């Protein structure tokens, strides 16, 4: 019996890259492209009533920001894996996408077999974090302490272990090396990274609510 296929949506405005990604994905026996588009509006409309297992989303779309689609899908479909399609050296935007709800990212220049491998890794629960992103996360959490006005559970800080995992990743260690260093299992490292992703997203949402309530936008900050 064949393994069930995972459906993938490709949202990318560069025709050549989209075509290559679709081709790479369709070739893989476990993956199939369920939807592709170059436009934000079109995608939002489609995702209103449809879903996929994995969303590949470019950040710069002709009619809007990809992070809007990411946030929408994260809210609609909490189980969906969302990957930012990024060029290298664009870590700031990747971090913003993670805060919008992305759980992984993919470089546009990645070779065909690594595209599928990254998607499958993500589905298996392994979100990637580059050293630069790891360092940016540490800095962001450090420099941006939890706003006191928000309920503690809403804006979680990183645990000591999670920070240690990130510090290992900053130095270029692989997940396995991090696990060895901290004397924990590889899967535990993956779990930590997943939870870091989630916390970033929750934090940024909490921050947004906090900012909104600070700006006096009615209703948003209230519990009523």
């Amino acid at each position: 019996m064949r393994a069930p296929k995972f459906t993938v949506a490709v949202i990318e405005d560069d025709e050549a890259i989209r075509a290559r990604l679709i081709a790479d994905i369709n070739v893989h026996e476990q993956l199939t492209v369920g939807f592709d588009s170059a436009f934000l509006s079109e995608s939002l409309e489609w995702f209103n009533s449809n879903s996929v297992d994995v969303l590949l989303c470019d950040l710069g779309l002709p009619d809007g920001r990809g992070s809007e689609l990411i946030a929408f899908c994260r809210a609609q479909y909490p189980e969906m894996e969302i990957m930012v399609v990024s060029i290298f050296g664009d870590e700031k935007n990747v971090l913003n996408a993670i805060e919008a709800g992305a759980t992984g990212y993919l470089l546009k220049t990645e070779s065909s077999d690594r595209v599928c491998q990254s998607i499958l890794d993500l589905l298996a629960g392994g979100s990637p974090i580059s050293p630069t992103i790891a360092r940016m996360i540490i800095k962001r959490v450090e420099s941006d302490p939890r706003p006191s006005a928000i309920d503690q559970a809403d804006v979680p800080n990183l645990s000591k272990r999670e920070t240690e995992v990130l510090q290992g990743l900053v130095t270029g260690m692989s997940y396995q090396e991090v696990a060895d260093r901290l004397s924990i299992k590889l899967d535990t490292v993956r779990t930590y990274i997943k939870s870091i992703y989630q916390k970033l997203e929750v934090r940024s949402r909490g921050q947004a609510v906090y900012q909104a309530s600070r700006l006096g936008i009615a209703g948003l900050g209230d519990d009523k």
Partner: protein
Amino acid sequence: MSELHGRLIWLACCVVVLAVAYQIRHISFQTPSGVLKLSVASFTQAGANQVAVQKTLPDNWQWHNNRTSHGFYRVQFSIADLDNSVKAILIPTVRSNVSVALNGEKVGDGGSMQPPIASNLRKPLMFVVPHGLLQTGNNILEVELKSSVSGKGFLDAIFVGPHAALNPAFKRHNFYRITLVESITYGLLITTLVIAILAGLRPQNKEYAWFALATFLWAAHNATNHITNIVVSNHVWDWFSYVTLGWFALVAPVVLARFKQQIHPRFERFLLSLAIVLPLLMLVLPQPAMHAMADYLWYPLAFSIGGGALLFVAIDAWKTNDLESQLLTASGLFIIPYALHDLLIVQAVLPWEDGFYIQFGAVVLLAVFTMILLYRLVRSTNEAELLNLNLSDEVSKKTQEIQAAMERTRLLEKNEWLSDERARITRDMHDGFAGQIASVLSTLKSGRFEAAEVETQLEYSINDLRLMIDSLDNEENDLVTLLGMFRYRANPMLEQAGIELDWVSLPPDTRIELLPATALHLLRIMQEALQNAVRHANCTRIKISATHNPEYPDEVLIRVQDNGVGIATELLDEPSKGKHRGLRNMRYRAEQINAALDICSTDTGTSLSLTLPAERLDQPSS
């Protein structure tokens, strides 16, 4: 034209002042009507065997060179029809004191007849005659006169008549001579107090203190004009009267000069020595000599100096057309005629019964002075307030200007840095990436190529481009992250080649920051070393380590070791000769970032060591 106007107005003011000053004559004694004026008396000097002589009242002993200080006047007068009204005897002016007896009965005196003799310098004396003492027909009035200064006694004409007729004249005279002067004294004392407080509050403005001294001296001198019952000896009292007025005249120039913001230390010292020496001399001299000295040396000298100062201010007022100077000279003008008048009285040129005017003279001057000082104070307070307001405005304006200037400087620096960086990146792109792509293009154009070779070349170019981006975009160019990214990027290549990587990096909390240019040189050296190992060394293991140099903690030691076949010795020795531009480039780059590069190769492997100064990696020598 307007300046001339100002001067003319000032001169006119001076004339008006003199005209007003002349009106002082109206305060002289006005003979009441319906009373008897007694002006013929027989005078007997005190002492044994003295002969009575006929005198006309007013009688000034100075006029007939009488050296005595004690004498008796006897006046005979007759009254035809005596009514029942209360009668009185009025003597407008005496010097220094009298005791009056009518028909052998004493009717009164002007104070103590024994030393210290009461000083009735200004005081009119009126005695109510007890009922029944005055008789129809002949009456005899006996007046005993005592002068505190021998030879300087004075007795005015004597008025006898109904109290109701004499009283208005007495009151009027008493008002001008005593009450008014007393009021002036109190006013001056209050002024002194106010100015002294100001002087204490503003010790840097010495003119306040000097002015307070001047007003006090004037008040003190005035007091000698209306205080009758003295407690010190006549000698000291007279001395005090002379000295206070003289001192005022000596202090006035200092006040005026300092008021005009001028300080003449030598002149002030001269005045001080005058003010000390002459009064001391007067104090030790016997009484007649003291009076002579006061009348003929002390007063003339002091008033010449004071008047001279006023003249200086007048000249200044004329020259500069300065309103303050003009006001001061105009008001000071009062003093001149009064001082001259009084000086002439003292020297018996003018009749003694005129009385002194000097006590009124300085009042206007001092009032004007006070007003100017207060006005100055108010003005400077206002100016300070305005200045404060302007200052805070100024400060905020300047702050903004400085901020703007700093912003401009920062922008300029940033622009300069940006254009430097832009030039460097452009050069890098042109020399590196563009050259590599061009080379691939020409290979493709030639038609003779192997796909694998082209792929390798393009991969190399992309990797180089990644290094460039990492060197630029890395957060703060943190060395640890930079090395981490290098390993992260190198992973796929190593996996593909089936090479095991042993990775040892610096501790995560190591803080070493590099400039983008330095970072790129470092990354390219490491990339070159790694690619050499992957492509040419035929190795199975690579170890990359970054550690602090144990001997020099300020250095970072980066090693790339493989277990491959090693590099040919001739290539290492003379890298420029071979096709291996890579080695030569590495050395060049190491030089650029002040790092020591050491390559050691044997047939069991190659080891590349790069020693970076870790404190200051940011300024590669150009």
